[in-house]
């Protein structure tokens, strides 16, 4: 077996990234467009804050931090799964049509049913992501061709749905306005009760992803090699589709379409720990929220007293970062 395993380095990396994540969480509670002093934040967390500080900390910073943790973890893990599964370092969860399905459902919701509150679109977005990836799997799973067929189905269906979504929003001014906000990506949309309901799906997706890691390692050398090692390739494939749908669908439902995290995180992680999915998946799960929270914090302070939506910051900062990293090192094979 040629997959190099560096268990020591993997465990060390998990510890380091977990520590960085803890710092990111604290920063996300402490920093914002409203320059509250640290003691005021601590007072508010302890329930002794003023009306204003309690509102800023409990109604805004705590929920958006939780959303950033869940969405970032889900996007990181989903990206790692997609890249391993397709053996393509450019793959991201969007290739299964997750984002297009969610956006289509949100556009239908706001234009046909007049949904206006950001919390109201969480479940339609999740349902849209699930339904579209199911349709993509059914179309892409029939006949030979493996992951390529699946991706072609996902890209084709995604393009059709994006076209219809654009048509809906261009003919309905209110839908246009609300979709503009949704498309920017934001950690402030979902309420805490929505998060409680969405979190189990992310947890299930993450557990499934970990369970798939050994099989994905075997499949890295090709389906035939994996089969010869006794791996049930068909079952792994279905497992990956289900896990990616749960993870990326949930992330898109609560935070809108945040691009780049699913693409970038697995690359960075593989540079650190190599291609063993048993290390790549947990580390991607931890590194995803670091990037999402850091981008959100940057968006809060960079033009204070106003804010930049997190999706915009991720694209602005993520793209140059990825280019810089790619120029310094060769992209790590899968």
């Amino acid at each position, binding site marked *: 077996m040629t997959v190099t395993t560096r268990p020591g380095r993997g465990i060390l990396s998990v510890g380091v990234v977990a520590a960085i994540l803890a710092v990111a969480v604290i920063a996300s509670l402490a920093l914002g467009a*409203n320059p509250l002093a640290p003691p005021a934040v601590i007072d508010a967390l302890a329930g002794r804050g003023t009306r204003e500080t309690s509102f800023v900390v409990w109604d805004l910073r705590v929920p958006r931090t939780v959303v950033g943790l869940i969405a970032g973890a889900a996007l990181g893990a989903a990206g790692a799964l997609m890249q391993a599964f397709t053996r393509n370092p450019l793959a991201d969860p969007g290739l299964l049509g997750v984002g297009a399905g969610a956006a289509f459902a949100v556009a239908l919701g706001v234009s046909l049913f007049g949904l206006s509150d950001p919390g109201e679109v969480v479940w339609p977005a999740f349902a849209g992501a699930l339904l579209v990836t199911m349709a993509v799997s059914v179309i892409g799973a029939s006949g030979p061709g493996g992951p390529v067929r699946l991706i072609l189905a996902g890209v084709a269906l995604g393009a059709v749905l994006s076209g219809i979504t654009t048509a809906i929003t261009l003919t309905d001014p209110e839908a246009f306005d609300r979709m*503009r*906000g949704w498309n920017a990506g*934001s950690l402030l949309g979902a309420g805490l009760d929505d998060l409680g309901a969405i979190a189990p799906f992310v947890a299930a997706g993450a557990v499934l992803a970990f369970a798939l890691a050994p099989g994905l390692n075997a499949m890295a050398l090709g389906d035939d090699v994996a089969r010869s090692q006794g791996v049930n390739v068909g079952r792994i494939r279905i497992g990956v589709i289900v896990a990616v749908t749960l993870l990326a669908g949930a992330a898109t439902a609560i935070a809108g379409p945040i691009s780049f995290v699913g693409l970038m995180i697995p690359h960075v992680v593989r540079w650190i720990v190599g291609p063993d999915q048993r290390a790549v998946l947990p580390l991607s799960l931890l590194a995803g929220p670091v990037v999402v929270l850091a981008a959100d914090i940057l968006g809060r302070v960079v033009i204070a007293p*106003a804010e*930049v*939506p997190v999706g915009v910051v991720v694209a602005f900062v993520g793209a140059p970062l990825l280019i810089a990293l790619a120029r310094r090192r060769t992209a790590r094979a899968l």
Partner: protein
Amino acid sequence: MSPRSRLVLASAAGMIALALAGCTAAAAPESASGSAAPGTRSVEHARGTADVPDQPERVVTLEPLELDTAVAIGITPVGAAVAGNVTELPSYLGVSDVAPVGTVPEPDLEAIAALKPDLILGTESRHSELYEQLSAIAPTVFIASQADPWRENATLIGEALGREDEVAGLLTGVDDECARLKSEYALDGQTVQLIRPRDETTLSLYGPVSFAGSLLECVGFTIPDREWEDGLQADLSPENIASATADHVFVTAADVDDRSAIPAAVASAFPDATLVDTSTWVSGVGPKGAEAVLGDIERYLSANR
């Protein structure tokens, strides 16, 4: 020579011919400026001078303020550009039969030409590149910027339409109405904020130079000072919503009867905020929109007296 410059040259030649024909005609009625051809007046505007018909009959407007002002003095344009995010003319104007000619940022030149207008009204800051092409279709008058004080812009539009007296009368009417509300409700020293929710992370506050902001101040409210962009507006994170505290808080909404559309941050900080119509308070720049906004303010004041 490119086809485009040939077109410009040809239309220039045509205009010279027309001007010469005008010179040989019998004594024309006195016009505002001596140099203009008979039946036309010279109007100085953001892009120079245009010879416009004395009484334009087929007007196309490319800016909401121009549409509002034209309708307010009784001229229904034959065509109007609509705001980028809507598909129809605002209903508060109460006009139909106005052909859509593209959007405010991207007017449709073919649709404009097909209407055979005799006057086109546009905005230098938005339609600068289109001026030559628009002028080839019909005399074109540009206001400098939609961000300039709306009264000055409306005055120029009145001049272009040959109705400066009527526009001046409407503006005086707005001032009189402000003065009446001011003396009746004695709002001196009472603060006000107008909040427009943009998306989950951005709330815009409107400043004293903005359309609705200027009307709130003219009835006697005070908009607390802050760092405005061009005096027009200031964007705010929901974290800073408390800094928008004021005696009276108005929040813009597409549907003033739907309180669920208020963002959570605004609803939590100002549970008693009054919803006002975005199509008039934000987009209804002009004398007719001003009338609607002042009407809303009076209804609010009399209900909360």
